[in-house]
């Protein structure tokens, strides 16, 4: 294919690496060397992830964590445009500023729907397995070019600006990947089985309601631990739903899957372990309390969890 997911990672790696070069030289950053090293290593991991042996990559990741743990990651100065500058530029460009921003979703959708199965000769144009990611990356690249032309800015300005945003996110940028890693280790160590065994010993198995309750709440809780409903689904469904709901009460597999997964999503809304949904946005929006997004989501999540329990119970009666 012409554009593979690896090409996207190279794009991400280059952005991060170039940004880190500015960090190394950022005199306003009290820990510029270690901070720069953090982003440099992160860039390397994105750029060369498929080449570096897993063990070396593991060590690299641990060095990054040690930098963060030892307080070596600090913010610097980014030569931000002053409020006045921004106002002047804004007057010049006005609503045209929305154009590149809106190009991102538009091109992504065109890519995912329009470029599916499109080939030149024998080759797919976009990586079919990762078509959304590749389309999104392509969309950002096109809108970046439009943005640079429109604003007549220097080519390095976007790199400097992306460094400003990435460093505002800081260690939270790496957290989703680390949590996914933890999920893998939990799985290989058999945490899932222990949890589902535990849940199935507590619940009264003769009552449909309590089994439904245990399955839904279990999905939510286990998702909160793993940070990912996809990790919870096979474990909880194999542990509770298949033997009890399907085997004993004859519940329709389609019903319990659809509703059980949603119960898991309720858990996703309530856990810092789902960092890419809950913690990264808090960092992106400069929220003081990193759990603020979760706090806002909890009431909706709890109401919907109750709804899911009731729904699955009543349609299974």
């Amino acid at each position, binding site marked *: 294919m012409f554009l593979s997911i690896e090409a996207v990672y190279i794009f991400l790696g280059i952005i991060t690496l170039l940004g880190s070069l500015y960090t190394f030289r950022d005199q306003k950053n009290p820990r510029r060397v270690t901070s720069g090293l953090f982003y440099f290593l992160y860039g390397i991991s994105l750029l060369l992830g498929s080449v570096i042996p897993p063990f070396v990559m593991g060590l690299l*990741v641990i060095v990054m964590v040690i930098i963060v743990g030892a307080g070596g990651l600090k913010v610097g100065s980014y030569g931000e445009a002053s409020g006045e500058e921004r106002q002047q530029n804004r007057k010049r460009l006005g609503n045209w500023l929305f154009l590149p921003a809106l190009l991102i979703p538009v091109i992504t959708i065109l890519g995912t729907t329009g470029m599916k199965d499109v080939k030149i000769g024998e080759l797919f144009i976009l990586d079919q397995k990762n078509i959304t990611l590749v389309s999104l990356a392509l969309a950002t690249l096109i809108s970046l070019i439009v943005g640079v032309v429109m604003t007549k800015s220097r080519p390095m300005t976007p790199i400097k600006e992306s460094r400003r*945003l990435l460093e505002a996110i800081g260690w939270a940028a790496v957290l989703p990947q680390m949590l996914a890693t933890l999920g*893998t280790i939990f799985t*290989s160590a058999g945490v899932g089985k222990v949890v589902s065994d535990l849940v199935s010993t507590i619940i009264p198995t003769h009552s449909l309601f309590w089994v439904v309750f245990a399955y839904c709440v279990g999905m939510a809780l286990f998702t909160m631990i793993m940070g990912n409903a996809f990790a919870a689904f096979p474990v909880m469904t194999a542990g509770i739903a298949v033997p009890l709901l399907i085997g004993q009460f004859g519940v329709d*597999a389609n019903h319990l899957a659809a509703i059980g997964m949603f119960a898991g999503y309720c858990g996703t809304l309530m856990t810092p372990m789902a960092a890419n949904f809950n913690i990264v946005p808090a960092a992106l929006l400069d929220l003081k309390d990193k759990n603020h997004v979760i706090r806002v989501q909890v009431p909706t999540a709890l109401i919907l969890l109750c709804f899911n329990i009731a729904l699955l119970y009543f349609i299974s009666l």
Partner: protein
Amino acid sequence: MVLIGVAIVIIGFIVRLNPLLVVTVAGLVTGLVAQQSLFDIIEQFGKAFTTNRYMAIFIATLPVIGLLERYGLREQAESVVAKIKAATAGRIINVYFFIREVAAVFGLTSIGGHAQMVRPLVAPMAEGAAEAKYGKDLPDDVRQNIRAHSAAADNIGVFFGEDVFIAIGAILLMKGFFDQNNIPSDPLQMAMWAIPTAIAALIVHSIRLNMLDRSLDRRFGNKQNKSAGKGE
């Protein structure tokens, strides 16, 4: 014993140690308790970190979003909304929430996102609407709350919309699981039974966003209506 990792994570988050450190230690300890060798554990770290690089995709959006912000994108978003009289923070977020969920129902999950939509557009628009209504000197806690609501709407919209779409990862995962266990299942049925919860999410969260507006009204008084009242 393997639950010790879970305990480390929970305690770590409660005492607010750095989450990155907590997660790494939990991973190491869990692996060691399960009698994996240190080499194996570190190798797993590396392998999983590499396969999950797709989670870093938001970085792709940063250069263009950062550039546009430098040229006043967020201020422009605020000022456009300020001209619309009917705009309130809750309504702006509600419109976005509705579009996000309905788009996800049709499989268009890439229409939103925190880095490309919420930070540069939705949050400033919602804040701008609140400023226009209650004055420029909004207290910081109100701004923070509006921003958090903007992010939450993005999550809730996409989560409860996407499973209605048959070709989404979740449905394929569930189908795969049942196939492995020799249990008959049908993706179309799964997608259909996602509809009631999708509708419930739409209703519940819209009401909550409506309540956000009302709580802002209560706190600051309904200034717009007051000034309109004077003119009559």
